[in-house]
Structures are given as structure tokens and as C-alpha cells.
């Protein structure tokens, strides 16, 4: 039994790392602009399909897709930002709908370009087992877990220590006041979209390397990412990390200790529980008054 639980924890942690990578970009944009980019999952998916193309066309490891994916996904992310910036009023709601529309466009574009087939890596290296004592995993899972941690650490350091991080939060807190501080809100916002694009690119290649992809998967990715963002509390990067790990572990433990059919239920339950007990998320700012 203990061996089972150990493996479940390990699987959960690795899975959490991948969730975190997907969620981070969404959380970043949400934290900076109060905009939920409902097309974030599709951006991730786009990167995954780039990895597929690189692998199937040129026979290269999916890792080589990262530069291409970075460029393409960042361009798309900036385009999304550009569209959002054209919204004239009620940005919070309208951006939701707008990005939802972008998601539909991307999903169908992916469908038209790559067809509905299930894709995943065929690279043996990525799929091979990596075993540390009682802990089993695929190489790619560990690889991207490390990548995820590194990106997360870097981003966290950057946001909390750099001036840019402050600027980002200032813009989301009070746009006019931020301008008075010498901050150009558009630049900050574009930068956060680009960073979200970079994260999405890594996340996409990661998913292709240890999971399966299909054109319709984008939406599910966005929802997972959002759940984690809420667990975390807006604007908290360590929160995203903890939320993602918590979700991954809770899911894995549910399979081990109860039934695997209930895995999703537990994820949702956890989400609601945290919302009720801590409406601001695990790491969100405390209550505020006028």
C-alpha cells in the first residue's frame, strides 16, 4: 500500500508540474489584466501541434520545436492582446467572450490543418521509463517537470524582484495611477502576453511529449488552468505551483485510495472547497475595503 501511495504522490507531483506550466500563462494574464484568456489552452495546443509537425515532418525530437513554437505562439498571443485592446468597454466580460471566440477559431483552424486524429510523440527517448527506487515515470515527465520548476522560479523571481513585476500589478490595480507613475500600460500588458505565450509554448511541447493531443483538447486545458489559477489566488505564482501540485496529488490519490472514476469529481470538489473556505484562493490577497 505504501508503495502505491508513494507512486501516487510522485505521479501527482509530476502531473502537478505539468498543470502548473499550463496554468501559469493564464494566471499571469489574469493577474495583470484581470482578463481570462479563454484561448490560452488553444495556444498551448498550437505549440503541441508545432512539436508534432517538427517530429513527423523532420524526424526531430519535439524539443527542437520549442524555438518555432515560441515564435508562433508569441505572435498569436500578441494578436490576442491586440484584439483585446480594441475592446472599448466592459473589458472584463467582453474579453472573456472575445477570447472564447479566438479559441473557437484556433480549434477549428487546428482541425482544418492537422485533422482530428489523436497525436502524440513517437520518440522512444521521451517515452522511456525513468525509475528512481519506487518512483516510476517517463523521461519526458521528469524533464518537463524540471523545466516547469525552472520557468516558474524564474518568473517568480522576476515578478517579485523586478520593477516590471510591480508595474504589472500597478497597472491592474489602478490604470490611471500607474500612468502617473511613468508606466506605459500597453507595454506592460504586451510583455505579459508574450511571457504567457512563452509559457504556453513550453507547455504545448511538454504535453505533446508525454500526453496526447486532439484539436478539441484546448478548452479542457483552459478549464484546468483556470481551476488552478483560482486555487492559487490571483497573481500568486507560488500559489499556482501549490495549487497545481495539490490538484495533481489529489487526483492521483483519489485513483489510488478510491475509484478512478471519481478523479475529476475530486478535482472539482477541491476547487469548490477552496473557493468556499478561502474565496481569495490559497495565496490570494486578503479582503479589502473601499
Amino acid at each position: 500500500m505504501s508503495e502505491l501511495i508513494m507512486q501516487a504522490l510522485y505521479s501527482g507531483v509530476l502531473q502537478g508540474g505539468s498543470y502548473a506550466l499550463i496554468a501559469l500563462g493564464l494566471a499571469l494574464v489574469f493577474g495583470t489584466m484581470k482578463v481570462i484568456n479563454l484561448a490560452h489552452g488553444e495556444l498551448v495546443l498550437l505549440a503541441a501541434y508545432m512539436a508534432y509537425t517538427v517530429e513527423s515532418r523532420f524526424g526531430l525530437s519535439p524539443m527542437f520545436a520549442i524555438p518555432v513554437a515560441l515564435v508562433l505562439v508569441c505572435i498569436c498571443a500578441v494578436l490576442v492582446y491586440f484584439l483585446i485592446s480594441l475592446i472599448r468597454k466592459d473589458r472584463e466580460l467582453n474579453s472573456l467572450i472575445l477570447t472564447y471566440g479566438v479559441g473557437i477559431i484556433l480549434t477549428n483552424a487546428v482541425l482544418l490543418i492537422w485533422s482530428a486524429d489523436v497525436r502524440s510523440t513517437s520518440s522512444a527517448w521521451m517515452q522511456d521509463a525513468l525509475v528512481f527506487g519506487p518512483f516510476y515515470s517517463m523521461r519526458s515527465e521528469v524533464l518537463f517537470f524540471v523545466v516547469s520548476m525552472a520557468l516558474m522560479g524564474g518568473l517568480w523571481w522576476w515578478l517579485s524582484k523586478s520593477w516590471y513585476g510591480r508595474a504589472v500589478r500597478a497597472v491592474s490595480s489602478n490604470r490611471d495611477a500607474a500612468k502617473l507613475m511613468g508606466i506605459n500600460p500597453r507595454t506592460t500588458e504586451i510583455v505579459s502576453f508574450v511571457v504567457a505565450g512563452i509559457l504556453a509554448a513550453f507547455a504545448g511541447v511538454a504535453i505533446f511529449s508525454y500526453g496526447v493531443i486532439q484539436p478539441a483538447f484546448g478548452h479542457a486545458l483552459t478549464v484546468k488552468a483556470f481551476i488552478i489559477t483560482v486555487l492559487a489566488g490571483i497573481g500568486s505564482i507560488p500559489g499556482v505551483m501549490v495549487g497545481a501540485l495539490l490538484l495533481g496529488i489529489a487526483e492521483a490519490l483519489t485513483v489510488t485510495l478510491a475509484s478512478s472514476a471519481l478523479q475529476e469529481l475530486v478535482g472539482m470538489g477541491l476547487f469548490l472547497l477552496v473557493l468556499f473556505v478561502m474565496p481569495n484562493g490559497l495565496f490570494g490577497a486578503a479582503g479589502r475595503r473601499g
Partner: protein
Amino acid sequence: DEILVGAEIPLTGSLARVGAGMHEGISVAVDVFNKTNGKHTIKIVTADDESAPAKAIAAVEKLAGDGVVAITGGYGSNNIGPASDAANKLGLPYITSGGVAENLTERGYKTFFRINNTAGYQKAMVGLLDTMQIKSASVVYSTKEATADLAKDVEKELAAKGVAVTLHAFDPAITDFKPIINKVRLQDKPEVIVMVGYENDYVGILRAAKVLKPKVKAMVGVWSLATPKMASDFPDLMPSVYGTALLPFPAEFQTEEGKRFADTYMKLYNKAPDYLGQFGFVQSMILFEAIARAADAGTLKSGGIAQELARTDRQTLIGRVQFSDKGDNLNFVHRMGQHQDGKIAIVWPSDAATGKMNFPGVPW
């Protein structure tokens, strides 16, 4: 004279992939039929049901409005149910291979025909396990309708034979199967793992199994597994894996019809046929022939097609087809194939076998 036949097919949405596969088979059937029949010409009108029940109804009604005499197609029992309901109301015969739910044939419609069913897949899986003489199995299955039905039926039959079976349901959304496989590995310790799911689930399960290496003798699955596509897309995961398969791969056809099917398929789509196309082809050929007979008898507009369909008794690429009075194929039995060296050999039943079973054998 040109007779219009409707194809109600998911071309978008979650079932787009399988829908496209079936549609290819239907197109091949049209080509073959029009070339060989000489007297009647069939024209297909396609309507996308977007993998959604309400749209499936609308699609059937649209096709009826276009003047089709019958409908071939349908994927997913939840779309086929309402769609064939609508067809029945409109008096249109509906033939499918896309949904195996029991309740479809329990309605007792005179216009509904299905060439495959859960029982056929179940027979094949249990038959294979019988041949292997295993004593214990773990069934890992998706909670979706078709998969859950099949998994439970297989469990019942195996349990009745004295095989120790454990069931593991999983939500279709999950991607990491290691916790499940680990449970199987450490707690169940079965001789065989039976997988009842779809392509993405198989990839996940097999990957997890390849990492954890449970001590089993075989990995057995159902549809969408022993296919050329899986063999070429996931060469590392597939060796020795079993799945239902109608065709060996590379496909070899002994019959005249089979050869014509394969040639036309190659000509139209420039690839080897798979089981989706094959089902689409068979259901459509049966329908077209019934239409031709009804047209000859002059009963095309007076319910003749359904009557002719009910009388079907014919050898096809999937074996002999005869319909019960509820429209189910009485003789449907599937075969089991095994991935061997990037190819697929039919290993069960023995009279259809094209290769020797590689047992015990797993991908790792």
C-alpha cells in the same frame, strides 16, 4: 435514374475523426456500387451532425427535405438514438455501425438496422481470453456509455467462467494512467489487462504500463487499437498488443468484393483501408443493394427498402449479415488482431487467423 441517399455523419466535434473514417467507407461504397450495379445510380447527400443529438435530428430532417430515400451513417449511440427516432418518424430506413448501445435495438423500430453490436466485441474479447486460458484479468475502462457497457458485459461473462476480474473505471478526461496501472500492478496482479477505451486512452494506458511494467501476459483492447494508424503512429507502444480488428495489416482480401473495396479505397484516399471505412462500406453496400431491389420491385416509396433490408442475408467483409426483427445483426462477431512487427495479424478466431499469437507478449 439517380437515387439520393443521406449520410448523417459527425464531421466536426468530438466524433469528427471516426465520422470522417466512416464517411470514407460510404464514399467507397457509392463508387463501387455505381460501377458494378449498372442499373441504378446512388448519390450521397451528406449532413454534418456536429457530434450533437439535436443537430443529428436536424441533419436527418434536412436530408429528408432533400428527398433521400434512406440514411446511412451515425456515430455515437447518443446521436444515433435521436437521429434514428427522427428517421423512423419520417419513414426513412436508417443503417449504422457507429453505436453499440443495447437500447438502440430495443426500441423495435422496423426502420433501424445495425451491423455491429456490443455482443460481437464481447464475444471476440472473451473468446481470445479463453484461448489464452487466463485466470485473472483487470478491466480498465472509460466511463463513457459504449465502453462502460462493454466492460461490464465482459466482466460478467468472464466472472461466470470463473476468471477473477477487477474493474477500474476512469473518467474520459484523465491523461495520467500511472496511478491506475500501478494499482493493477501491485494489488490485482492479473494475468491480462483489458482496456476498453479510445485511442487517446490506449496511448495513455500503454505508456503507463510501459513505464511500470506490470507482470502481465497480454494487453488486450477493443476498437481503434489494432489499426494501421496506431501501428504507424506509436510503433513503440504497440508491439504484441491485442485489439479487435477486422482486417490484418497490410490488408489482404480474399474475396472479389474485398479487393474492389481496397482498390477503390486506395484510389480515392491513397491509403490502406481501416475498420471505420470498412464498416461504412459494408453498411452502405447492404443498404444500396436493398434500395436497388426495392426500386426494381417499385416499392421504393412505400416502405420497400426497410423490408428488403430486413431480408438481407449476405456474406460481407465483416462476415455474414442477417438482421433480427429489431434490426440487430445476428451474426456479428469480431476478430482479434495483434500488433506484430509493425503489422497486424488476425489471431482469433483460429479459422480466420493470419498469424500466430505471440503469447505471452507485451510491448516491453
